[in-house]
């Protein structure tokens, strides 16, 4: 898994390339928490899943964990470029109760 983090105003966009599972979710958690910890101004988190080819319940748990940090800042969690098989996982997991799916990154960035 490779992570690319981009800051745009109060929005942190994380592009996840590869697989988010038991093996890679600790690195996902620590990298994002480190970024959020260093910059309290970040309010919203956008996950760009264009290059994400696998997520299981360990990965979903890692995403939910980051939502818990973001919601403490009254921020929003958004996913963009979600492939159909991942959309189904999100629906089954109930994660869509707390995470919005946006068709494009541009639309997702209009949060504040």
């Amino acid at each position: 898994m490779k992570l690319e983090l981009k800051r745009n105003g109060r929005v942190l966009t994380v592009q996840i390339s590869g697989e988010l599972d038991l093996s890679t979710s600790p690195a996902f958690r620590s990298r994002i928490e480190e970024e959020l910890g260093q910059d309290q101004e970040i309010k919203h988190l956008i996950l760009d899943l264009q290059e994400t080819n696998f997520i299981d319940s360990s990965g979903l748990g890692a995403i939910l964990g980051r939502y818990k940090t973001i919601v403490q800042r009254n921020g929003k969690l958004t996913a963009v470029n979600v492939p159909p098989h991942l959309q189904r996982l999100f629906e089954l997991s109930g994660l869509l109760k707390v995470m919005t799916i946006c068709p494009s990154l541009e639309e997702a960035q209009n949060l504040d």
Partner: protein
Amino acid sequence: MKENYLNISFPSLPDNVSLSRVIAASFAAQLDFTLNELEEIRVAISEAVSNCVIHAYPEHPGEVRLELRIKDDTLMIKVIDEGCGIQDLDLAKTPAYSSDPERMGLGLVFMESFMDEMTIESQLQKGTQVLMVKKPERSKNSSHDCQ
């Protein structure tokens, strides 16, 4: 009549979860599964092996056995450990049951949702055996056509 099998053993290390996914999906591709069905198998195997890593052997890695079988048009997957066993199977199957805030407690739910059958046998301090069965939808439809 198509028959094949593959048995492998590996230590319950997080890195072996993705390896088991690749092996199971490659083996399953011998049947007429759609890409979506292969994706479901990848999630189910990932959950089963992750459970071995997290729950069966929480202190030190132990051995996980993965047994893959094809008989006719049916894929059978067994994931076997000799770990600590499941104390309360009904509780473990409850959606969103997890003691860890970083986990969603959906592993067994996904395994049940994505496979045609899923059974678990578990004995405390002896281990757990998960059996998952899946048949390609296209094979189900063609067998109906023959009737």
